[in-house]
Structures are given as structure tokens and as C-alpha cells.
């Protein structure tokens, strides 16, 4: 059953804001949040919402993005934007693009293209070919020079029970790179570096992390060089989430411009004041990101099955009289795995053991599988004989 609850998280840049700029920062965030919340409330999709919210932030000269972009040392404006669909892991990104009104719109257009990242002139030509709006005159208002850039995540709550903390499920996020296949980076880097030989380009593209690639290609940009690498990594490299959690760990003063809206709270409170909504939502949001409900027991392999069974005892103790499902999805040849565990767990007093062997993804969603998992007290993933088996088990079960 699809769960239509969602959260929208956006930030206007993690930084301590001067007193005279606080109102403008708050207003800008709230306005953008309202636009996104309205779209999502009417059933709009995550990518549209994220794009729209970031456009609103880019249009507001208060923020260091789009209209308010801080100039480079040479006086020009070069903007970066990235957008990712967490469900498909597709990304689109532009870096060091000039003159377009909303860089995120160009990034969005790249989402379904074979090229993931375009920079500079190439990005601008692509934008022009796609009819993206340009600014004819260069912007004269800049955000505060130290202002970090903006970000937005639309995030679906997957929980049903309100009493439990909910694991967050990122659906669209500026956090790119980690899961992105290297080959796609290489391809796009080759695409975007005219005048560089293919071997040079491949060598330079051999980092899996897209944003570091973006940093690299923009290294002629004095604006980036002025920032210490670590700051850069946190603020731009990883999107909103680590910036949020780290800033909070440091006391949270830098988070003044971050607005989080949980729809239920938003609706209930009408138009609530910023801080209570923000603090409640952020604590909920962070909780659900870092904590989950039940225990995870992660084993390095070859756990003792016929001696003291130390580790399996721990699993048994937590399952008690309940049903333990043993998933043999990761094995090439599941025969024998289940029997071995059946014997080991029986000796530990767990008798309600059910095997779940999944050969195709479709089976995972079948009625029988649902029934097996419905009343399970625990789930045990066995090992496999090859690394590829990890991928299989994850892809088959990740959406279930």
C-alpha cells in the first residue's frame, strides 16, 4: 500500500546568519517550502517539488544560488546544481554554468540523458538548445559572501505506527556520487572536457564521487579554491543530510535558514511559526535517519553453528518463541544452508523457522512471500558463494 506521507527538507545554506538578514532568510525558506508543500499536497511528484523549491531559492537573491550567487574572484558568476532521483539513482548535474536563471532546471533536464554532468560553456549550450530561460543582465545583488549554497530533499516517511521511529527513505536528494557507477562519471567527463585526451580524462574521472569530480573540473574557479576542502565536502559534496547532522552536533546555530515541514504538522497548525515546527521536525527527521526500531545483528561470516553458538544465541534470544525467517536469497545454491541453520537454531530453542528463497525479484512481492514475512519476529540473511550474491539479495529485497 503506498504511503503518501512525506517530508520536505530544504535549506538556504548552513551558516550563522547576521541579525539583519535573518528575516529575509526565514522568509525565503518558508516561501520555498510552501511552494513545494503545496505541490506535494496536490499529489505532485518528488522531482517536480525539489526542482520547484530549488528554483524558488535560486530566484531569491538572499541565497547563494541562482540570482544571489556569489561572484568569483574574476567577477563572473558560475553556478552548480545537481538533482538525483533516489528511486532510480539517476542524476543530472551542471557545474560552473553562467547566465541561466535556474541551474537546477538544466540539471533536471540532464536526469535522463546519458551524460550526467555538464560544465561551463557546454552546459550553457545544452541549456540554450533546450530552451532554458537565461538572465540577460548579470545579477547585481549577491548573497552574503560566506553564504553556503542551498539544498532540498523530498523524503517519504515509510512508517505506519506513530509510536515508532521511522526509518527515512530518501526519494530524491542532492546527495550524488556515492552510488553512482564510475563508468557514468567517466563517460560524462569525457563528454565535457574538450581539449583533454581521452586517457587524461579517464584518469581524472576515476573518482567515484561525482562532486569531487565537479570540484576538480572547477578548480580554475577561485571561489572553490578559497574554501578549505573539508568544508567544501560537507557543504557541497554530500548535500543536506550530513551538513544537517554535523551542524546540529556543533550546536545548531548554523542552521537558522533550514526549514523542515512535515505535512501533518503544517496542516494541523495552519501557518505555524518557524522555530517550533523546525525543531520538532528536525529531531524527528534525524532520529529516523540514524535510528531504526529493531536490532540489527551483522555477522562477519562463518559464525559458529555447532559449538557455543555465541552469535546465533544472540539472534535466538531476540526471536524467542517468534518466527524466524531464514532468507537464502544470497546463495547460488541454497541447498543445505537452511538445514544447517535449522539444526543450529533448534539446539538454541528456536523451532519456528521458515525458509525464504527468492530466485527472482517478482517472487519477493508475491503473496506467499508477504505471508511468510508478515508475522516474522526476525529475518536472517545467510551468506553466499560470491560477491555478486550480495547484489542479488539487495536488489531483490530493497524495495520490499
Amino acid at each position, binding site marked *: 500500500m503506498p504511503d503518501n506521507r512525506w517530508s520536505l527538507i530544504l535549506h538556504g545554506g548552513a551558516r550563522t546568519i547576521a541579525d539583519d538578514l535573518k528575516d529575509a532568510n526565514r522568509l525565503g525558506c518558508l516561501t520555498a517550502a510552501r511552494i513545494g508543500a503545496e505541490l506535494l499536497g496536490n499529489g505532485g511528484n518528488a522531482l517536480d517539488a525539489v526542482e520547484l523549491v530549488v528554483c524558488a531559492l535560486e530566484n531569491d537573491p538572499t541565497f547563494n544560488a541562482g540570482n544571489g550567487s556569489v561572484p568569483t574572484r574574476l567577477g563572473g558568476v558560475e553556478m552548480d546544481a545537481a538533482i538525483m532521483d533516489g528511486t532510480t539513482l539517476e542524476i543530472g548535474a551542471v557545474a560552473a554554468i553562467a547566465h541561466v536563471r535556474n541551474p537546477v532546471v538544466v540539471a533536471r533536464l540532464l536526469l535522463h540523458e546519458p551524460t550526467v554532468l555538464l560544465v561551463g560553456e557546454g552546459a550553457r549550450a545544452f541549456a540554450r538548445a533546450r530552451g532554458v530561460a537565461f538572465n540577460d543582465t548579470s545579477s547585481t545583488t549577491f548573497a552574503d559572501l560566506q553564504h553556503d549554497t542551498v539544498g532540498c530533499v523530498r523524503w517519504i516517511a515509510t512508517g505506519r505506527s506513530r509510536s515508532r521511529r521511522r526509518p527515512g527513505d530518501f526519494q530524491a536528494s542532492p546527495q550524488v556520487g556515492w552510488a553512482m557507477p564510475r563508468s557514468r562519471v567517466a563517460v560524462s567527463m569525457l563528454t565535457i572536457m574538450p581539449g583533454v585526451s581521452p586517457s587524461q580524462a579517464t584518469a*581524472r574521472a576515476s573518482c567515484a564521487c561525482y562532486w569531487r569530480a565537479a570540484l576538480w573540473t572547477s578548480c580554475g574557479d577561485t571561489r572553490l579554491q578559497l574554501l578549505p576542502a573539508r568544508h567544501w565536502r560537507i557543504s557541497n559534496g554530500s548535500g543536506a543530510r550530513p551538513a544537517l547532522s554535523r551542524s546540529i552536533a556543533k550546536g545548531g546555530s548554523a542552521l537558522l535558514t533550514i526549514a523542515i515541514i512535515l505535512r501533518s504538522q503544517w496542516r494541523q497548525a495552519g501557518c505555524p511559526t518557524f522555530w517550533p515546527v523546525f525543531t520538532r521536525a528536525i529531531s524527528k527527521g534525524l532520529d529516523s535517519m540514524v535510528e531504526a526500531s529493531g536490532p540489527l545483528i551483522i555477522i562477519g561470516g562463518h559464525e559458529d553453528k555447532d559449538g557455543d553458538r555465541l552469535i546465533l544465541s544472540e539472534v535466538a534470544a531476540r526471536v524467542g518463541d517468534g518466527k524466524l525467517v531464514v532468507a537464502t536469497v544470497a546463495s547460488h545454491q541454497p541447498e543445505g544452508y537452511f538445514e544447517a541453520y535449522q539444526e543450529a537454531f533448534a539446539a538454541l530453542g528456536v523451532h519456528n523457522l521458515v525458509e525464504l528463497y527468492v530466485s527472482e525479484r517478482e517472487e519477493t512481492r508475491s503473496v506467499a512471500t508477504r505471508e511468510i514475512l508478515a508475522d516474522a519476529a526476525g529475518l536472517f540473511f545467510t551468506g553466499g558463494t560470491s560477491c555478486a550474491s550480495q547484489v542479488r539479495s539487495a536488489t531483490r529485497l530493497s524495495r520490499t
Partner: protein
Amino acid sequence: MIRDIHRRGGVIAGTSAGASAMSETMLVRGSSAESHRIGNLNMAPGLGLIPHVIIDQHFAERGRIGRLLGAVAQNPRVLGIGIDEDTAIIVEEGAFRVLGVGAVYIVDGEDVTHSNVAEARREEALSMFGVRLHVLAAGDLFDLQTRRPTSAA
């Protein structure tokens, strides 16, 4: 369905490949016979039950420290956790406890001052300075939020 079990307080356990699949990102290939080469690593999305970490198993037995360092070098904000055979971590409330006969290695790249992962060629060896390594044994605790271990004693 898996998340449902987890959410209502059920235990999710995994061993070997089943252990690696619990994190957001998992290592699916990478050499262990020699020092890590930049290009010698492949990652894929996992189940995402434990965020911001990458887990490797059969750790000491298969000499996987190199590939875990390589994974952390590629994304320094992710915590690398290497678990020996017949050893487990029990994750609850944002922290974990070590159980079993082997050790658990934690690679924290937060304070890395230099790495050649972005610039080097694929066949070059990894260079990384300032990486923090913890080795935990049975009973030791580790807080995933503060990234600090606590001794069993």
C-alpha cells in the same frame, strides 16, 4: 516487508554477504591480495538498514583492509566497518556492541587530510593520510553518531 519487520522491533540478522547487504552501499568487488589500487573497487546499493556505513565481512581472514580503506577514501563521510568471521556487531539505538571471537575494524575518514583517489590512475596504489582506525573486540561499544568507541572494561 523487511522494513516492516525492522520497524515493529523485529531482529534483522545477516552473515557474510547477507551482512554487507544491510548498509546503504556495499562492496561487491575489490582485491584483497595486495595494497588497494584506485580503480579496483565496485560498489552497489544495499538494503539501507544502517545508514552512513559500509560493511565488509570475512575481514581479517580475507585481508580486506585495503578494499575497505579504498571505499572510505572514495567517500570519507561513510564509516567503514570490517567484521571478522565468527564475530558480529549488534546495532541498537545508534550504537553497536561487538560479540564473538574476532575483531571489528572501524575506518573513519572524517579527518583525512589527503587522498589521491580523485587524481590517480586506476592502477595506482591508494594514498591517504590521517585516516582513523579503531579495533574493537568482544564487549566493546561504538557510538555511530559521535563515532567514538567505549571499552568493555
